[in-house]
């Protein structure tokens, strides 16, 4: 016999978040009239320790066997309150959260009367549902010590090293032929002016030498199935046509290769051959034959690189490899792409040769870059005397991206300082909306640029760039918003400070792993403040710019946080998952097999003409239950009775 429900209902004020809109006194008086309610109380912050104590005390005093908390979204505090029940000896699944903040007080702020009605209905639905809740046992899954890290930029590298050093096995998958990511393209880093590759390349080498890290470059994750502790990953590795173990990076193949294509690593400012190494410090240190640009491999059209290769490292018969990995946790660190300003008509990027992006400038400033560290105008390869920076290109703009890309202010200031170091006589002007120098040492760095280096700052967004067709000089039109007057300025070179955007590949990962993304396309964290590197998918974490724009220190900090999050998931060896699987009542099951066909996980089989659900495979979507003609399938915690109890109360007056 099911015991008589004794429900305790707790109304949270959430400071004024809820109580500022909903009349808690009236709500409390209403709740007290509901059937099965043994006690109802309100408190400023139910999630605080004194709030929790109220529930703990009442559980014993009133012998409560059900608890409803009317507060925020269950996504936030359901685990908090369930834990209280568990600790006080009541099944945590006898808890129900009534969402009266996100879905009530915050969306009906100007309509307190209706908000109260909604709160009454929501709590009534929850109380009714608790009577139908059932005792469930949490499911435990085994978790091993293997992590997959997607993306080999500075975030992926940092997370890999932390996990590997802690004794975990890391599979690091990188889509390009080398690890290093965007950071490898940068010259110096703000505000310390460290040389980017000097701090990055030793880490890259550590990754390649670490016994616990298995590195897959030129490879992409194609499919992920399973769950925490049991992810089955398919990786497709593209053929490099060069045996990494044999290649000595002698460059003989490059000399004979007849194909030249723009070099992506140098922001297309120089050329590379079809057989190439992305940059001299690439890891793994090996050439790669880019099959798209090679004159032809089947049938072989040229074959010069093979002739030139003394160590006989060329293998034209190389083929794509499908690699299957079993991992326990996944860290997604897919990084960013620089914003492409081609579609912003006002800047004429791509039409005017002397309009360049900040990444192109970064490569020019680099001593091993395409210009050996000289800053040159693309039109005539002369050194510019006047340079203008345009801030917030692809950021803080309704037509492109609303968000701030967080790094552009500081890298523009950094580049401006580098320009002034090389050419003190050069006029360098930055057009900005505001300078956001928010990090450690940033404000000092910015002030020094203006005071000691003589970088000019003009507040105002650039409206238009025009070109003098004779000398290819540019005219920048803007409004100086401090003086309140329009401004027209001739310059030799314009640098667009382009923002950070999610990568194209991130969209694939979003589809494969089902990690939600925000409106801007970056991966969403499970909670923006308290769970910044977790996702809503158990065992899947995010790090670096894949989760939103950030600079190198923040990306590394987040990568280390994700590594630590993965450790805390893997170290105990077991992980508790919600027992939301479905059960078949084989006294009712007619054996029609409809559910077998519908299950997306092949978790249902027929045994003795009855459906049988494999609990380990079932993820609890409930698609089978809603199709079962006999009503024989019960998805735990979302049974027909439970949902119907809510439906019946939703409209009742």
């Amino acid at each position, binding site marked *: 016999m099911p015991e008589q429900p004794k429900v305790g209902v707790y109304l949270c004020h959430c400071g004024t978040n809820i109580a500022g809109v909903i009349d808690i006194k009236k709500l409390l008086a209403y709740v007290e009239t509901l059937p099965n309610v043994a006690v109802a109380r309100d408190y400023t912050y139910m999630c605080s320790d004194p709030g929790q104590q109220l529930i703990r005390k009442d559980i014993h005093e009133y012998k409560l066997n059900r608890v409803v908390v009317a507060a925020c*979204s*269950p*996504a936030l505090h359901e685990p908090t309150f369930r834990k209280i029940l568990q600790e006080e000896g009541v099944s945590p699944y006898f808890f129900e959260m009534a*969402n009266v*903040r*996100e*879905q*009530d007080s*915050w*969306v*009906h*702020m*100007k*309509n307190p009367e*209706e*908000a109260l*009605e*909604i709160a009454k*209905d*929501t709590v009534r*639905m929850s109380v009714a549902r608790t009577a139908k809740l059932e005792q469930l046992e949490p499911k435990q899954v085994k978790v091993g010590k293997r992590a997959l890290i997607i993306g080999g930029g500075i975030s992926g590298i940092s997370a890999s090293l932390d996990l590997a050093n802690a004794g975990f096995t890391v599979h690091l998958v990188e889509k390009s032929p080398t690890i290093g990511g965007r950071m490898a393209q940068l010259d110096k880093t703000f505000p310390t002016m460290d040389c980017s590759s000097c701090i990055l390349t030793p880490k890259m080498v550590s990754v390649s030498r670490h016994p616990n890290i298995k590195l897959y470059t030129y490879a992409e994750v194609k499919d992920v199935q399973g769950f925490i502790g049991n992810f089955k990953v398919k990786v497709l590795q593209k053929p490099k046509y060069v045996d990494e173990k044999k290649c000595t990076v002698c460059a003989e193949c490059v000399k004979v290769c007849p194909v030249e294509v723009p070099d992506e690593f140098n922001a297309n400012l120089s050329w590379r051959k079809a057989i190439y190494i992305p940059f001299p410090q690439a890891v793994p240190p090996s050439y790669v034959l880019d099959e798209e640009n090679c004159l032809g491999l089947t049938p072989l059209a040229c074959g010069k690189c093979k002739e030139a290769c003394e160590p006989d490292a060329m293998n034209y018969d190389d083929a794509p490899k499908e690699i299957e990995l079993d991992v326990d946790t996944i860290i997604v660190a897919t990084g960013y792409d620089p914003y492409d300003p081609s579609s912003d008509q006002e800047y004429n990027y791509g039409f005017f040769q002397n309009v360049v992006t900040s990444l192109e400038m970064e490569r020019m400033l680099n001593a091993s870059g395409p210009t050996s560290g000289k800053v040159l105008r693309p039109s005539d390869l002369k050194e510019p005397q006047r340079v203008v920076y345009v801030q917030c290109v692809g950021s803080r703009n309704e037509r492109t991206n609303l968000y701030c890309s967080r790094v552009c202010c500081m890298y523009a200031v950094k580049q401006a300082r580098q320009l002034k170091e090389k050419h003190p006589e050069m006029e360098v002007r930055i057009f900005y909306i505001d300078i956001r120098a928010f990090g450690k040492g940033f404000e000092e760095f910015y002030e020094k640029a203006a005071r000691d280096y003589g970088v000019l700052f003009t507040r105002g967004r650039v409206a238009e760039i025009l070109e003098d067709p004779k000398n290819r000089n540019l005219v920048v039109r803007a409004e100086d918003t401090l003086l309140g007057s329009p401004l027209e300025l001739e310059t030799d070179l314009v640098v667009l400070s382009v923002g950070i955007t999610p990568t194209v590949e991130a969209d694939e990962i979003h*589809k494969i792993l*089902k990690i*939600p*993304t*925000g*409106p801007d396309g970056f991966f*969403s964290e499970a909670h923006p403040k308290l769970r910044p590197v977790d996702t*809503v998918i158990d065992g899947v974490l995010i790090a670096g710019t894949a989760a939103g724009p950030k600079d190198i220190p923040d990306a590394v900090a987040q990568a280390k946080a994700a590594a630590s999050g993965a450790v805390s998931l893997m170290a105990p060896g077991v992980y508790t998952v919600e027992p*939301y699987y479905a059960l078949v009542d084989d006294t009712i099951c007619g054996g029609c097999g409809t559910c077998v066909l*519908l299950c*997306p*996980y092949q978790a249902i089989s027929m045994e003795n003409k009855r459906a049988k659900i494999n609990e380990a495979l079932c*993820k*609890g*979507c*409930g*698609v089978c*239950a*809603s*199709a079962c003609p006999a009503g024989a399938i019960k*998805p735990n915690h*979302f049974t*027909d009775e439970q*949902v*119907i109890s*809510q*439906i*019946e109360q*939703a*409209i*009742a007056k």
Partner: protein
Amino acid sequence: MTEMADRFEPQILGFLCNWCSYAGADLAGTSRTQYSPNIRIIRVMCSGRVDPTFVLLALKNGADGVLIAGCHPPSDCHYLTGNLKARRRYHLLLKLLDQLGIERQRVRLEWISASEGEKFARVVNEFTEQIRALGPNPLKAS
């Protein structure tokens, strides 16, 4: 009597997928996007969990409209294909509503992701107006 009190206020029941639309509704909250106070929400793990009988029961109990919201097809579904099954059932359910003499506009299927708080608010507003124009559920009186 004010003008407001005369107006028919539809009662709408929404079945929202835990992973996308419920989170989208939460996002409308965190963004403080205000919308019509006509919807009551039931959280389900997947739009594919919404048994057509749930919808019929809601209508029988007097709901003027029922919203089912899930993840964008084809591939956003947390459970691979639950949203596609929800869509298939939805179209069959519409035929059944025709046979029962219930306006098919009373049941609406929408795809709302976790990032679409604004869309959730817009859908609730639009649907509320759609049902308001349609008038009360004829089953309600009985």
